């Protein structure tokens, strides 16, 4: 340090400046490291790490959609025995589960689908579109199913009155009535041909009424999908509103004043197991109206595991269930 005491002109060594420069350099290196860590963290955050392959919500929807198709298939093929429908449904869902499981394994995911339970039901159907909507024996006011719940209820109805014109949900034209006997709530729908086109009038419990009249298409048949809330494919949001909760009775009034087809699945398997000969033909018949064996709903178990997500849940599938 002795040299510090002697400063000769032109021999300044600037030790203090050097030390300070060194300190500043160290500070800025530290700053660079800190900023780099922050940039790295932002970079990591924007990668796909935040998304999850095979999100359980998506997997549920896929499984539900696939099972819906399988339900539709087994209910319209080989429906002559309850056990056949159940076996077919179980086998098809298990095959789908195996396939989906293998597909998920490609992405390093575990996915298993199991059939926890199947609720048997009956499919009530009329396929002869020229036939009136009466009971098998011709009775015009009749109950299709008692104390039940219905799903996938679709109709294609034409007015069969001698003179077309206005009507109402309590009038003298074809009507569908859904009543909960315990609460007394009644929802009813009249379908008729007005001067211009087909009209659907609905009366909710409490007396509120409204009309679903799709744009005139020159077609004298109207297609009604109660679950989807559509008339001739056009949305009528109020259509299914106010249908009382189950169990309810489904009744046709003035079945002779209309012709057409309908299809529904009710959660009561005894109708198909021992069909009332006055009301329906049996599962082996091709005449209308008939009742066949069906699966009303199924409860599936879904297990999924990825490196970050574990999910176990159940999915109940009953497409187009009312209300």
């Amino acid at each position, binding site marked *: 340090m002795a040299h510090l005491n002697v400063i000769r002109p032109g021999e300044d060594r*600037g030790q203090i400046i050097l030390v300070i420069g060194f300190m*500043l350099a160290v500070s800025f290196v530290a700053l660079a490291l800190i900023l780099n860590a*922050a940039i790295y963290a932002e970079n990591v955050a924007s990668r796909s*790490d935040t998304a999850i392959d095979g999100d359980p919500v998506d997997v549920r929807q896929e499984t539900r959609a696939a099972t819906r198709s399988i339900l539709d298939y087994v209910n319209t093929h080989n429906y002559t025995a309850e056990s056949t429908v159940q076996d077919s449904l179980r086998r098809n869902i298990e095959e789908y589960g195996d396939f989906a499981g293998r597909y998920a394994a490609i992405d390093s995911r575990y996915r298993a689908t199991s059939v926890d339970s199947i609720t048997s039901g009956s499919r009530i159907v009329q396929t002869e579109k020229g036939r009136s909507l009466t009971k098998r024996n011709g009775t015009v006011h009749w109950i299709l199913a008692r104390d039940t719940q219905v799903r996938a209820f679709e109709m294609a109805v034409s007015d069969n009155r001698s003179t077309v014109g206005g009507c109402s949900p309590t009038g003298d034209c074809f009507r569908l009535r859904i009543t909960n006997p315990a609460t007394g709530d009644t929802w009813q729908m009249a379908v008729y041909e007005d001067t211009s086109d087909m009209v659907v009038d609905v009366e909710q419990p409490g007396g509120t009424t409204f009309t679903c009249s799709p744009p005139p298409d020159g077609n004298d048949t109207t297609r009604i999908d109660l679950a989807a809330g559509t008339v001739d494919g056009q949305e009528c949001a109020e259509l299914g509103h106010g249908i009382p909760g189950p169990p309810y009775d489904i009744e046709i009034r003035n079945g002779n004043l209309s012709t057409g087809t309908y299809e529904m699945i009710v959660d009561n398997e005894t109708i198909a197991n021992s069909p009332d000969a006055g009301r329906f033909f049996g599962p082996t018949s091709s005449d209308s109206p008939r009742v066949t064996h069906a699966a009303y709903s199924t409860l599936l178990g879904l297990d999924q595991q990825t490196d970050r997500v574990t999910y*176990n849940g*159940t999915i109940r599938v009953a497409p187009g269930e009312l209300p």
Partner: protein
Amino acid sequence: MTDRALSTTLSYVLALGITTVLASGLILAGGEFVSDQREQGIRTELQIVGEQLAGDLERVDRMVRADATGVERAVITRSIPDTVAGADYLVSLTDEPSPTLRLWTESPEVAVTVPIHNRTTVGTGILTEDHVRIYYDATQSEIEVDDG
């Protein structure tokens, strides 16, 4: 002309003094800058960690909302950094007044809050480890977090 206005000693003292003042100013300013940037870095990283955890919480919420009665088990795990810009930090989940994640460091004091947009009730808890488990407790009908 060898006479000088200042003696060598005075000149030396002045040079040393001025250099020291200037250098001190530089170090202070530089240090302050580094400190500010570090806090900013910490805040950014806490925000990122918070957003990731909030994203996972909301994902569990969506799983539950898809069918609350059908969920038996919904768990998401996540590894988070054990320090942010060299500082230890803590994470807490609160539900008052609204579900929020709070992440903070004590030295320097930096705190970040991240709101959670959920419909399922969330529990409360403090996370101290670098491995987090977010899960749905079906018995309590609420989403909870703990150290995985």
